[in-house]
């Protein structure tokens, strides 16, 4: 075995070049493994970040998928709260408001009406939850507009298209600066008490959705079914259902990851098989001699397979840090696409999955080493010796 491994590095530059190739293939496979489920898993973590396991939306609508709203929101909230197992109900109404400077309005910001006693959209970093006439602003907005708790911001509910002027402008005091969980990088967002947003956009007693938290020990799936029975005019999604839907919508990512991962595995197998085949061919005489002097075929085969295993293991050792580095770079590129929450990640490091992917590379290396090894030890010995002598 030791002699086989030494033989592997007899042609050092050739082996190192092959190792570089296997390392890159392993890195690609690793990235594709992390990509295949990364966004869904990361989105799942985000959905559960504030402890709201269910989303209640207008019938047939996914959260924030359209402008549709749940009417008679206060009564609906009470009916949901009355369902056994519900620990809390957090309303949210999405809207667009226009920051106003002087007489003109700027680009609209995403505004959410929330209940400051329980909301699922942000974490306050500085200051406190908003009261009447107050607003919480996102960090990028605070940074860009130089806002801090106590600052005043003017927000308009719409634009007068003919005059190009803001209308329905109101002044709000900034009560806090927050990290908005679903914002894309650099997005300007605000959150206000629900009633303020309902009044500003003329949607009294309406919400886009409710977040529902389950009491400890309550199964979210069963709770969703109970809410659905009590409030049949809404749709209730558990985090698991939302993830399934997200996963369905992102199936092209998985298909791409599967194809690229398969290509990476094939390249690994070809590289290992090629380098081992060349090495076995070069040592054809040595191997025939070893068989002639009585070294067991299994021992010789084991030595050749060990070469494939070693190549694959070293390739994985190179591929792991390379793959993680590539994943960080690719994540940055992919997340720069507009509209994606900056808190999600396309590549999730799951030790179990990563270990499985690397184990597959090692297994492929062993099999790829096995093929030329079997060829060498199964060839008729007398013929091999004659060929070598010629």
């Amino acid at each position, binding site marked *: 075995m030791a*002699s086989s491994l030494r033989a592997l590095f007899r042609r050092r530059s050739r082996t190192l070049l092959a190792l570089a190739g296997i390392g890159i293939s392993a890195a690609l496979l690793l990235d594709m493994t992390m990509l295949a489920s990364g966004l869904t898993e990361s989105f799942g973590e985000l959905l559960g970040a504030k402890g709201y396991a269910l989303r209640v939306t207008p019938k047939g609508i996914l959260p924030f998928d359209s402008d549709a709203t749940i009417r008679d929101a206060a009564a609906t909230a009470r009916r949901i709260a009355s369902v056994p197992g519900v620990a809390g109900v957090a309303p949210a109404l999405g809207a667009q408001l226009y920051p106003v400077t002087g007489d003109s309005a700027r680009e609209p910001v995403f505004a959410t009406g929330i209940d400051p006693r329980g909301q699922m959209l942000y974490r306050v970093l500085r200051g406190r939850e908003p009261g009447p006439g107050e607003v919480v602003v996102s960090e990028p907005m605070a940074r860009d507009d130089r806002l801090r708790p106590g600052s005043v911001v003017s927000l308009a509910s719409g634009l007068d298209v003919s005059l190009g002027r803001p209308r329905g402008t109101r002044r709000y005091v900034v009560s806090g600066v927050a990290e908005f969980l679903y914002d894309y990088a650099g997005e300007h967002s605000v959150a206000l008490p629900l009633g303020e947003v309902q009044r500003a956009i003329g949607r009294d007693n309406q919400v886009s959705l409710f977040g529902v938290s389950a009491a400890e020990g309550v199964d979210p799936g069963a709770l969703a079914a109970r809410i659905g029975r009590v409030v049949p005019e809404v749709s209730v999604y558990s985090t698991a259902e939302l993830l399934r839907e997200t996963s369905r919508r992102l199936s092209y990512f998985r298909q791409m990851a599967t194809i690229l991962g398969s290509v990476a595995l094939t390249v690994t197998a070809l590289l290992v098989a090629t380098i081992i085949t060349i090495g076995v061919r070069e040592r054809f005489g*040595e191997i025939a001699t070893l068989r002639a002097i009585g070294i067991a075929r299994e021992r010789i085969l084991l030595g050749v397979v060990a070469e494939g295993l070693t190549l694959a293991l070293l390739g994985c050792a190179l591929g792991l840090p390379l793959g993680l580095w590539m994943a960080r770079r690719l994540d940055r590129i992919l997340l720069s696409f507009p509209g994606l929450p900056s808190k999600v990640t396309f590549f999730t490091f799951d030790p179990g999955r990563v270990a499985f992917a690397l184990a597959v590379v090692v297994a492929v290396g062993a099999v790829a080493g096995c093929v030329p090894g079997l060829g060498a030890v199964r060839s008729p010995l007398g013929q091999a*010796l004659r060929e070598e002598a010629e």
Partner: protein
Amino acid sequence: MSVISARGIVKEYPYGGDSVRALRGVDLEVGPGELVAVVGPSGCGKSSLLNVLAGIDPPTEGRVELLGRDLGALGEGERSRLRLREVGFIFQRFHLLSVLTAAENVEFPMAEAGVPKGERRARARELLEYVGLGHRVGHRPPHLSGGEQQRVAIARALANRPKLVFADEPTGELDRRTGDEIIALFERLNADGTTLVIVTHDTSVAGRTRRVVEMADGVVVRDGRAGG
């Protein structure tokens, strides 16, 4: 008891859709302690005979007994173990493992035979000294001359104290003087009690053995003392 007993050996090799007959009914007996040269022109079947006698190639017809064991009755694994423990091999191109030192090459068959590490180290050194390479134990084959490599190969062949050694053109890659040294080593080995069968087309080798088996066209045409 014969060390080798071969009766009616026929060996055919497939060639295209047909077959080539390399051995056409060879009978051969080799007794303990003999030093036998198998000679003949290229293609006469010398190496084919060696492969059949050593259990490397099965005969198409005939029966071979090696050290009292019927090779036809042994499986591949048993023939392999027989070669490992009781037969030594020396080849024209040495075929040492180039990544191992001279001592490690000699130890290799002993490790396969399960000889303890300390014992095989001592024996490898002893054998390398026997073949005159006591000062080269730590050298790798690429740093040894052809003659030195063949001496290492001889030491490797002797590693498991074989009763019989086969050598296939052992001087074929060596100059005259080095070849003579190797033959002298074979003579010493034979004098120490090892049976040797040497396949060669080198007439000077044949001239130094007590028995010469001459082959032509796959049959033994003469079997007797050198020059006899």
